[in-house]
Every structure is written in C-alpha cells, then in structure tokens.
C-alpha cells in the first residue's frame, strides 16, 4: 500500500509531463535562447573567431570551423538554460501549498523532487535535440558514429541530471518564485567562461585558470571529442566525475531543504 520510490516518482513525472504538454511553449523557449546565441556567435563573430582557432581546420574557412567548434558549447547552454524552468516550477510548488499536502501523505520522500528532475531531463533532451537540428541546418557536420552519438547523448543526459538536481535545490531554497527565476542565471554564464566559445588558454590569466578547472570545460571538451573527433584525453573521466559529484550534492541538498518547513508554513 505504501508506494515505492520508483512508482511514486513515475506518478510525479506524469504530473511534470502533463504540465509540459499543456505549456509546450516552455520547451521552445528553452531552445530559443541557445538558438539565438548560436546564430549570433556563428554569423556575427564566427568568421573572426573561427580564423583565430588553433589547428588546420581554421585555414579552410573561419565560419565552418567555428560552427564545428561552438555547437557543443551551445548544447551545454541549452542544458544550463533549462535550470531556470526547473527552479521556477519547484518554487511554484512550494509557494502553492501543494508540497505541504505531499509531505503529509505517505509517499516516498524523494519522489516529488525526482519527478521534477525526470521531467526536466526529458524536457532538456527535447530542447537539445531541437537546437541540434537547427545546428545541422546551418552547417554543423558531426563526423561521428552511432556509439559516439550514444555516448554524447549520455553525457548530455548526465549533465542535465546534475544541473536539474542543483536547480531543484535552488528552487527549494528560494523564498519566492522571482528569486527562483534569478538564481540559476549564473549557470547560463558559466559556459561562456569555459572552452565553449573560445579556447580556455586564449583567455586572460586568472580567467584561463578558472575556465580550465570549472566543470563545463571537461564536459564540452568530451562532447566536442565525441561529435567532432578531437582528442578527449582525461576530460571524459573528469566530466563524468563532475556530473556525479554535482548530482549527489544537489540531491542531498534538495532533500534536506525539502524536509525543512516551508517558509509559508512557519507563519501564524
């Protein structure tokens, strides 16, 4: 009679998916920002930035080389951008009082939050696919086999899980829906300070150090390697490790916040 974590999470996932179906514009909105950024970087800065890239590909033509270089970063921007929507829907649940109902029911404690994470994962993967299709339309030509495709999708999913758990925590931590829509913005900025748009070593001293050591850089390097065949080195292991560490941190943090009394309930 008491539900398992899995069955309760699936019920909560259905709730997230229903909301997604009801407001499909949200998924397009998530894909919108990265698409605009991609067009901007490729068609405005692309030739110049592409010519400055190291390696033989730059000689053939700046624009094409830059498309090949920037798309993995754009895909990561898509994943990071979805964080805002997740944080907002979690914060909306919290302020709407429905969480108080869930917390007084005999359902698996983590299931409400897991439902949000699984929903966000599906939404993120759909938005990423949309961005990828547009990237191919404007000239992105990945040189990769089915195994690499699968690995790339897996890495994106892993990153999406890590970011979703962090956003669930941010959504729970926020006192209001407004705060929840602002705090995840730093996640959108991080890919710019990585090797996503220009090589990390081309940045100014301290920034280059930061770019080389922050989680997005190994993830982007691995993705680029899988899609374009550039060397991956130890980036793969570091990327996966970052994802696991961030997921576990986000999960533990979120569950602790979930157990805490909602701010609205402490009144009166």
């Amino acid at each position, binding site marked *: 009679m008491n539900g398992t974590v899995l069955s309760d999470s699936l019920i909560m996932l259905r709730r997230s998916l229903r909301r997604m179906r009801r407001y499909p514009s949200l998924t397009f909105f998530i894909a919108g920002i990265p698409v605009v950024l991609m067009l901007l970087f490729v068609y405005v800065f692309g030739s110049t930035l592409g010519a400055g890239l190291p390696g033989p590909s730059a000689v053939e033509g700046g624009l094409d080389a830059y498309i090949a270089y920037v798309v993995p970063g754009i895909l990561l921007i898509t994943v990071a951008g979805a964080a805002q929507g997740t944080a907002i829907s979690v914060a909306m649940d919290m302020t709407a009082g*429905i969480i108080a109902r869930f917390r007084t*029911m*005999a359902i698996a404690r983590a299931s409400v939050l897991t439902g949000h994470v699984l929903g966000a994962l599906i939404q993120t993967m759909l938005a990423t696919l949309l961005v990828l299709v547009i990237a191919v339309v404007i000239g992105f030509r990945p040189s990769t086999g089915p195994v690499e495709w699968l690995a790339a999708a897996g890495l994106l999913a892993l990153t999406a899980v890590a970011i979703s758990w962090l956003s669930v925590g941010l959504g729970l931590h926020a006192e209001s829906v407004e705060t929840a829509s602002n705090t995840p913005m730093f996640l959108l900025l991080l890919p710019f300070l990585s090797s996503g748009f220009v090589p990390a070593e081309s940045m100014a001293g301290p920034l280059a150090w930061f770019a080389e050591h922050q989680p997005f850089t190994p993830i982007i390097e691995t993705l680029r390697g899988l899609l374009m065949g550039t060397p991956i080195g130890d980036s793969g292991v570091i990327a996966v490790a970052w994802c696991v560490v961030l997921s576990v941190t986000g999960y533990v943090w979120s569950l602790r916040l979930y157990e805490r009394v909602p701010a609205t309930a402490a009144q009166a």
Partner: protein
Amino acid sequence: MTTQTPKTSAIKVRGLRKSFGKRLVLDGIDLDVPEGTVFALLGPNGAGKTTAIHILTTLLAPDAGEILVGGHDVVRRADAVRRLIGLTGQVSAVDAQFTGEENLRLMADLHHLGRDGGRARVTELLERFDLIDDAGKPAATYSGGMRRRLDLAMTLMGDPRIIFLDEPTTGLDPRSRRVMWDTIRDLAAGGTTILLTTQYLEEADRLANGIAMLDGGRVVAQGTPGELKRLVPGGNVRLEFGDAAGLERAALALGADLASRDDASLALELPNEGGVHALRELFQRLDTAGVEVEALSVRSADLDDVFLSLTGRRDGQEVPTP
C-alpha cells in the same frame, strides 16, 4: 508506545512545546481527542493553532512533548501517521494549473487506487462536492469556495481516519460556509475524527464535541461547549417596562438589587438560566404584583463569555464574526 494509549484516543498530546527562535509559540499543550469526534482548537490569530496542526500532521518537528496521532508517535512513526491523516490547510493545496479532475486523479494515483477504482472515486468525489460541471476547468479559474471544496475532496481521496482542517471556513461566503459545516458533520457521522481550528466561537459551538481554547500558546480551557459555558455565570433575562413606576414595582416584587437596575432605559437584568420553569415563576411573581412587561429578552452564556472571563479580554480578532 501503544500501551499507554486507550483505543478511544485519536489524538493525544502531552506537554507539546515549540518555539521559532526566541518566540515561544506553544507552551506546554495537552490535548485529548476521542475517536470519531469533532474537536476545535479555538483562539485568536497568533495563538499557535496552525503551528499545532503542522506538528500533528508531521510537517513540523516539536521541541518537546509526547504526541500520538492514531496511536503513533508523530516524530518516530511519521509515515504511519501519514497513512491515517488528511490535511486541508489555510494555504490552498491544489495544483492551480491542472483541472479539478486532474488534481483528484493525481491523489488517486498516489493512493494507488488503480485505474478503475481511481476513476470511480474521482467521479464520486466530484459529485459529492458539486464540482462535476467544472471538473474539466483549471483550478486557477475556481472561486474560493470551489477551491476549498476541491482541496477537501483531495484530502478525502485516501479515506483518512483523522482529518485536520486549518480554519476551514475563513474567507468563505455564508453559503459555502454552510456547505463546509454540513460536510464536516457528515464526516463525523461516518466515524472520522476531525480536528479543526477556528477563530469563530459560533463555529466551534456548532460543530465541536470538544473544544480547547488556545491563547498565547497555552490551553486556557478544555471541555465540551456545555462544560466551558458552565465556567462562567449562567445567562440572564432582561425585562423592559413602560414607565418608572412599573420598574419600581417589579424591582420590589422580584427583590432585585440596585446593580441589576437600568433606570435610564427602564430595564431590569436578572440572572436566570432562561428555562421554561424559571421564566414561568418569574412571570407569576410579576402578575401577582400587577406589572406589565413591555419587552423581554433571554440571553444564555456563550463561548464569548468564556473567552472573556478566561483571558480578560474579548477575542482579539479583527475579522468580523460570521
């Protein structure tokens, strides 16, 4: 932990204390709610009613005290408690983006009622709470009363044995309030234990078998409405007369002292419990004295008097009573 609890106690609280930072909200509360009864926590805003509800429903941890709900400790056996209870709080716990039917379906799924069983129960609850015509509309478009009904319907999905209602009629129009009262009575008639909070003395008087008056985090009185009313002097009878001579003769005939005389409005106010027998005796004495009475009013003690006599002030609320 079940040994010291008699079977008849749905809720048993001993020495419940809770503070938020330095603010002491509950200062040693004892409660006893027998199974199948309606119990009201009565008190002004800030008395600690909602905090007590949150602790009893496992939303909030107590600082101290022994709290048993359905025989289970709310801290150590929270999940066992959750299987027995339902909560309709002050903040609406419906998903405004979804329709009434979808909200109820979600509850049916979480209670694992199965596909057919769940559907049947959703329809039953929609009909019972008069929501069938609006079942397909998002809850965001519902009126306050409809939302409260949907909220309660969601709470009832799992057939809880003990229901907590935090100010169930605050902000409702008179018609919706009456519907809510009927629902509460129906549930109690079906054997469900109900603990509700209210600021309205009338509401507690009408619905509850037992009342605890809460003030400043303490229970200042506990008992049946009748028992509480007996804590204050009984009611009185007010007699009004046509002229000063009438008042004079009546006062003489009834042996009324000076304090009960209201010379300005030519009235007498006498202690009298207002029963038929007592009134008949009163009129016989007035007839013997040949006094005509212009107007008569009987007033029995109400919970307002109890609150006044226990706390030394009228109920501190600013909200108008229903």
